[in-house]
């Protein structure tokens, strides 16, 4: 009504101006002609036109957004149902014969999960309507918020290819799955079902034979197996898109998702080829390094799995690649704690919202008292606080909401801001957790130092949120480039609009120079570093519906900075310590280097026993450098104590990879150029514990097995029989073609502390410590 009135006025002014312009034509439109065109806009229509708002700006991003929305939904559904997520993402190239120059082409994206499935009657609503969902009207932490995502993806597919969404969903393990195909009607914001029948084809079988990789994995029950997917949903969307690796790609999204969701197992089958060449991005993560390595890895993995599911679970927690299929294994076997829905916290609420809430409460129950309202509709308001507030605005405990006038409401608003309240409850938030963060980073980033920190929950605009940060430093990361910032909100990686994001600003505003890092003004620190920031909140304030950047609230940025500083301090401590150790190491090296010469010279002059003299001098050199160590520590006592603590419980993992070559085995090839490290300190010893576990992560120790083959071929496995158990896998391995790695010297076997690698992975990581799995059944 008012709109019509306003436009009418506009037209009127147009008309009055007309004579001045001396135009011959009559009025362009009248209020009536315009009114005939004014009508409701369907949400679907709006977004169909403004698809960039939802992250479908270009074909490449469309592919990502589609995958992202589907994966987010899958993970959310699994977690809500208390199922450890197993998500498979398949991208099929539907025009494999297209010219090489084609920028975009048609793909079919299929995302299958082992979630609870969807009951038949809700399928249309979930997939076929925009702004329909369970997540909008509540304050509960989840990946999705508005209920736009998957429907929008389906809509985009429909618009670009005309093909409907294909959904298989199996809510009950004992029953058949529903097979539904639906197309969205943008005009009505409703789905039109084209196919609706029952099928037993879930998980869809045809994917198992899609590529050599899927066939290989399916043979070992590792790909869309009925065992792993008793219930679940799979959704296929055909769309015009572009597949390309690098920054902002589906690959990156899944890598990062795996980091932030170490409890999920994610399998990715990429299309057979990329759309168009692009310069290769720096490989941040160690996916697919070295074909041979990946091959043996997968092979040994598949050997183990048929025996017991436990063995498969305990297999190396590292990204694997089999025939082009990438598997991000599960790193931890606990679901994130279930989050609770909460009421808004009075702190930071806005007056308008308060008035709205009063109105709603009044509508709910005419007799609602103010006292009850405060207690019911807000979190952390106790009876006494509520009474206090009532008194402060001149009301009693029994005053009804309907009796509150606007001035009182405003006063109430002010009182609520000042009253002393505990921070919002934290059970509404499920932070990733320091341990999980470390496990995720360890899995995905090959560095030497990992630190993570989790802040206490805080509030912005009455909504609780919690910030976590992690840093991976050194190792295989490039030292001469700006650090990479990876951002997450409610465990979802944010890939675009980095500079608009609050977390990125927090990174640039943190003074990294304090932690011995290069830091250009207003930029990202330079160094071999990956910075991860996670914001968990019941409502993440995104800058747009495509959920690419977190809005820059001061409270949020402050928390992010504090979390980063905490990690930075740990890193700084480590770097200082490492520098010191290196200095000491160099010092000892210098002495040791000359001692031999001196011993020989003395021998030549006086005939003294050179060896004895050398030993005596070496002893002294060791003592001297040890003394220097202590002195340095006394100067900064905190350094040593802290770093020891740090590696034990403070959310830090140090992976010293300066193990002697004998222990390193044949995996040492990419570890050669490591800096010299001095003698072993307590902190290092702690780090080595972690390294022991890490050794299992790496193919190295598994590789070590084939190297035994030469001796094994000569005589039967007898000599090894005393090393208890675990014969079958080795026997399975023996007939395989010889490994490319050379056989180590015999003493290598003795030097290696544990000759049976298969048994060690039954360790799990807890607060940066290694804990045997059996002793530690459930951690949360």
């Amino acid at each position, binding site marked *: 009504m008012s709109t019509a009135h306003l436009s009418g006025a506009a037209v009127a002014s147009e008309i009055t101006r007309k004579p001045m312009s001396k135009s011959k034509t009559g009025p362009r439109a009248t209020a009536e002609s315009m009114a005939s065109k004014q009508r409701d806009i369907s949400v679907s229509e709006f977004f169909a036109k403004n698809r960039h708002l939802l992250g479908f700006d270009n074909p490449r991003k469309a592919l990502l957004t589609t995958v992202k929305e589907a994966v987010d939904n899958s993970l959310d559904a699994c977690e809500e149902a208390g199922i450890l997520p197993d998500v498979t993402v398949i991208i099929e190239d539907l025009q494999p014969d297209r010219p090489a120059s084609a920028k975009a082409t048609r793909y079919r994206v299929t995302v299958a999960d082992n979630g609870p499935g969807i009951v038949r009657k809700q399928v249309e609503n979930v997939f076929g309507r925009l702004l329909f969902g369970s997540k909008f009207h509540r304050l509960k932490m989840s990946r999705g918020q508005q209920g736009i995502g998957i429907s929008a993806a389906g809509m985009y597919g429909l618009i670009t290819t005309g093909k409907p969404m294909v959904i298989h969903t199996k809510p009950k393990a004992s029953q058949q799955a529903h097979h539904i195909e639906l197309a969205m009607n943008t005009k009505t914001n409703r789905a039109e079902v084209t196919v609706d029948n029952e099928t037993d084809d879930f998980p869809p079988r045809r994917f198992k034979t899609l590529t050599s990789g899927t066939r290989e994995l399916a043979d070992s029950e590792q790909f869309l197996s009925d065992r792993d997917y008793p219930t679940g949903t799979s959704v296929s969307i055909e769309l015009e898109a572009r597949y390309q690796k690098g920054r902002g790609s589906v690959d990156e999204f899944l890598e990062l998702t795996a980091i932030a969701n170490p409890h999920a197992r994610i399998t990715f089958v990429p299309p057979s080829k990329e759309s168009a060449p692009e310069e290769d991005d720096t490989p941040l993560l160690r996916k697919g390094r070295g074909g041979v390595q990946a091959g043996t890895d997968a092979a040994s993995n598949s050997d183990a799995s048929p025996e017991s599911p436990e063995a498969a679970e305990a297999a190396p927690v590292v990204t694997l690649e089999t025939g082009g299929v990438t598997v991000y294994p599960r790193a931890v076997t606990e679901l994130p704690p279930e989050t609770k829905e909460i009421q808004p916290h009075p702190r930071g609420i806005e007056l308008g919202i308060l008035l709205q809430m009063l109105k709603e409460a009044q509508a709910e129950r005419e007799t609602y008292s103010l006292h009850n309202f405060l207690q019911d509709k807000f979190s952390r308001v106790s009876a006494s606080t509520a009474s206090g507030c009532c008194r402060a605005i001149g009301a009693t405990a029994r005053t009804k909401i309907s009796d509150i006038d606007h001035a009182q409401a405003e006063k109430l608003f002010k009182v609520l801001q000042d009253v002393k309240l505990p921070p919002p409850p934290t059970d509404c938030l499920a932070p990733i957790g320091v341990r999980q963060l470390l496990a995720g980073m360890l899995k995905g980033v090959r560095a030497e130092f990992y630190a993570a920190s989790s802040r206490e929950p805080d509030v912005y605009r009455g909504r609780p949120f919690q910030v976590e940060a992690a840093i991976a430093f050194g190792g295989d990361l490039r030292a001469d480039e700006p650090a990479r910032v990876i951002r997450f909100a409610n465990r979802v990686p944010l890939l675009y609009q980095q500079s608009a994001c609050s977390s990125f600003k927090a990174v640039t505003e943190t003074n990294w120079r304090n932690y011995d890092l290069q830091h250009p003004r207003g930029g990202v620190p330079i160094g071999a570093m990956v910075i991860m920031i996670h914001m968990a909140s019941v409502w993440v304030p995104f800058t747009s519906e495509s959920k690419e950047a977190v809005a820059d609230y001061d409270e949020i940025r402050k928390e992010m900075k504090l979390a980063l500083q905490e990690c930075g301090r740990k890193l700084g401590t480590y770097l200082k310590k490492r520098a010191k150790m290196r200095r000491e*190491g160099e*010092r*000892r*090296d*210098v*002495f*040791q*280097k*000359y*001692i*031999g*010469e*001196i*011993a*020989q*010279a*003395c*021998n*030549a*002059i*006086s*005939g*003294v*026993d*050179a*060896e*004895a*003299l*050398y030993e*005596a*001098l*070496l*002893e*002294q*050199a060791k003592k*001297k450098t040890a003394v220097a160590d202590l002195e340095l520590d006394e100067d900064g006592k905190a350094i040593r104590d802290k770093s020891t603590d740090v590696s034990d419980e403070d959310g830090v993992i140090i992976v010293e990879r300066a193990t*002697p070559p004998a222990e390193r085995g044949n995996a040492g090839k990419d570890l050669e150029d490591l800096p010299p490290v001095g*003698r072993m300190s307590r902190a290092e010893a702690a780090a080595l514990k972690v390294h022991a576990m890490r050794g299992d992560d790496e193919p190295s120790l598994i590789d070590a097995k084939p190297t035994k083959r030469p001796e094994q071929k000569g005589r039967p496995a007898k000599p090894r029989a005393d090393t208890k158990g675990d014969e079958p896998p080795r026997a399975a391995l023996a007939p395989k073609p010889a490994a490319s790695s050379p056989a180590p010297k015999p003493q290598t076997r003795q030097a290696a502390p544990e000759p049976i690698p298969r048994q060690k992975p039954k360790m799990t990581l807890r607060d940066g410590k290694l804990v045997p799995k059996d002793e530690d059944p459930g951690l949360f």
Partner: protein
Amino acid sequence: MARKPAPKSSSKTTAPTTRKPVGKLPERDAKTVGKLVGLADMVSKRSMGGKEPVIQIPLRTRTNTNWNKKKGILEMGDAKADRPLFDLKTAKQFMQTMLHASTIKDLIEQGKTSSLRGVFYKAKHTVAGTKENTFDTQDESDPILEDLEVSLGALREELHIFASTRGNLVGNITIIDKGDEINARRMGSGGWGIPSIVEPSTLQFGKCDAKFVLHVEKDTVWQRFNEDRFWEEHNCILTHGGGQPPRGCRRLLQRLNQELKLPIICVLDCDPWGHYIYSVIKQGSISLAFESSRLAIPDAKFLGIRSKDYEACDLGDAIKIDLTDNDIKRAKEIAAYPWFAENRHWRKEIELLLKNGFKMEVEAMINKGISYVTEEYVPQRLKAKDWLE
């Protein structure tokens, strides 16, 4: 930490250490070897006893150099610098010192002598298990040898090391060098090269009719004097040291002065460098202060060129070379040397040099006539005994 050091190679060296009996060596050499063994014993004893081996080296710095006014020479003080093994700054030097000690012992036992450069090469090798050289340049090696000289209290000759030959001699004298009789009167245009080792055990003086020694700075000037048969006419010995005279040359001059009582008269450039050379000949140098008693010639005389000569000899402007800032700085430093500062004439000389603002080279006298310096300048001054002391 896997340095693989001595053990393997040391066993190799342990075996052939069938040391030659010291008794076979000449007494002087035996004494030197004894000192070297003493050094090695000190190192091994301290090490085995759990103490840090430290070599003490007398300081060859200006602060540890004393001016003995009575003797008129520079003498080394008692200050010593510790060279501990377990110090990043001195670890390598410690190793180098021991290497050189072992090299020298080898030289002595084989009855050979070596040049400084030869010793450098003998001790130079790659440190076991590294890519580092024991010595990178000779500049590293030479000071270590001097360190050994002073810390052992042994002369370079006693260490069987010689420097490269520099400086020439011609004149009315016969010299016996390692048994060969050298008639310095029949040396042609080249003269006799002064060897690095001129100790009485190696070199003796034969018949000498010369009345004094004329020492000039450089060979070019020396050539002029030799060509003009100056030494014949004035019955003297003519020497040069190629700039700052090396130890052999200085020792020879000192012996000519001490043993044959010949006055040493120097003709050097009129610049701070010339003054410094004279100072070294007369009083000794800081780095070789420990040898001053064998090298310094307190009664050496400075005949020219004098700063007054520009006017006195009516020299042309062409011979002037402006003093650089560095020259001025150096001149002031030299003026502050006690033996100059206490000498009124020298004070005046340097003051005038600074006042003139230019320096003069001996060769520049050619500007006045090819043989002006040999036929007029030097003879006149000698006759007038116009020199500085």
